């Protein structure tokens, strides 16, 4: 995943640049032939396929058409329990993500700042990152119960690693000459961190934050699906088991949309704050 993150970090600015260049080069492109319009068209096609597929398949226990799911969406958000579940999930996401961000940034800077600590601890971090965390979920449930704690913990352990790996990679990319120069000109430790280390970290930090946000959400949802009694994951399983696919589709689509929006916000921030390096 770390490799994937770097790939995408390297790719994102280029993407934007080529997109911008194309728009400047071809001002005559008509609106319905832009990539965005094609995208909307494909999404509409998928929704149409969903709508008519469900109507033709016609088994209300397993499939619900798009329109019916949309109606259900307005129904389920009036259910206090579902609303609480959504609200709970977002504050758990916020807490777990804040914890991963602080821990990942602090430890990442501590490990990434010097060559010996990097060579000592980075292989261990990568090794733990590769560990399939889902295997210890039952154990964590034994320890933390099935309340909100398990979700925050599991979200944290998922979100922490993409952030720390990207922070370390970013810190390792700082040109040592800059640090030597700053030191020789008498910069204090805090000045070095504020003026050199931190600005260089920002682009990879945002990549880490984006991947970490997705991973945190994944961790929370996994924990909810495995064992909770009132989370979003619980309601998705509940709707599936009680053969209410319209509610299931509504809820799942809503969470997926929220995930896409969060990711898009962080991707915008990533290109915005990575821009200073040119």
């Amino acid at each position: 995943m770390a490799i994937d993150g770097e790939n995408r970090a390297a790719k994102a600015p280029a993407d934007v640049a080529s997109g911008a260049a194309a728009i400047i080069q071809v001002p005559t492109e008509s609106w319905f032939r832009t990539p965005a319009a094609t995208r909307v068209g494909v999404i509409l096609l998928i929704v149409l396929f969903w709508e008519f597929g469900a109507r033709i398949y016609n088994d209300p226990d397993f499939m619900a058409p798009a329109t019916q799911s949309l109606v259900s969406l307005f129904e389920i958000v009036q259910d206090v329990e579902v609303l609480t579940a959504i609200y709970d999930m977002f504050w758990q996401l916020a807490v777990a993500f804040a914890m991963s961000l602080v821990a990942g940034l602090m430890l990442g800077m501590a490990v990434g700042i010097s060559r010996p600590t990097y060579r000592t601890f980075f292989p261990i971090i990568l090794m733990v990152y590769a560990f399939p965390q889902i295997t210890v979920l039952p154990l964590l449930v034994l320890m933390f119960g099935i309340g909100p704690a398990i979700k925050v913990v599991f979200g944290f352990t998922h979100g922490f690693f993409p952030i720390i790996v990207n922070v370390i990679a970013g810190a390792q990319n700082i040109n040592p000459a800059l640090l030597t120069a700053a030191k020789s000109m008498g910069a204090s430790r805090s000045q070095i961190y504020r003026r050199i280390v931190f600005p260089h970290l920002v682009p990879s930090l945002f990549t880490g934050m984006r991947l970490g946000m997705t991973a945190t959400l994944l961790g929370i949802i996994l924990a909810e699906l495995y064992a909770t009694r009132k989370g979003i994951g619980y309601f998705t399983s509940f709707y599936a088991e009680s053969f209410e696919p319209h509610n299931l589709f509504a809820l799942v689509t809503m969470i997926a949309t929220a995930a896409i929006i969060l990711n898009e916000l962080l991707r915008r921030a990533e290109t915005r704050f990575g821009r200073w390096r040119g």
Partner: protein
Amino acid sequence: MTDSKIRIRLIQVSMFAVIFVAWFIATETESVSNLFLPKLGDVATDFRDLIGSGDAWSPLSVTLFELVVAFFNAVVFGTSIGYLVSRSKFLMRAFEPMFSSMFAVPLIIFYPLALLFFGLGPGSKIAIGSALGFFPVVLNTINGFGHVDAGYMRVARSMGAKGFPMFRRVLLPAALPIILTGYRIGFILCFLSIVGGETIGSFSGLGHQIVYYAESMLTSMMFAYIIFIVIIAYILNSLVFYMERKGNYY
């Protein structure tokens, strides 16, 4: 080995040693309940039983079967769709952002849906594994075939290459490393989501085994299974890394 290398290894080894000694002391003195953290000796005994009795092979074969089918689906669909998209700049600009934002959705949320459609058997794990493995494969295929150095293409074209020779001699060698990385990431995601699916809802497979022993409060057997899965994951990881390097060498 240089001096600093030895020092680094020493710190790493002593870190693990401290963890194991702490584990040993905590469990032997019963300051941590054996329900949460079993004794090291018990885990070792159970692990030996697990391998010796051959109990692990049947869940392992279920998981590996799901993994192979799911990864096959991900590769076939991911590579072909990725290749088709990469043939046009326009399609790339339209679809690449779409795939990459869909990749950000925790697709495991669709797992109850997969359970609804395909039941508790291998079908639902194959579905979720294929879906998760598809995205890295398709994204890296688009990236690989779509960003071949325009200089290579121009040179090859001016020398009269087109059609299959062009693909075989220019496009494929240039794109292969990126595509293989996509395969590797896709494979790992397949494995993780399949084990995850087995943990959440299943009646066979390695993930199910862990849940079974956790719920029967046989924590030492559960740890034995966790170690087993970690070893399997390590072997699979090394295998795909090896294949990736082999493929790049070619």
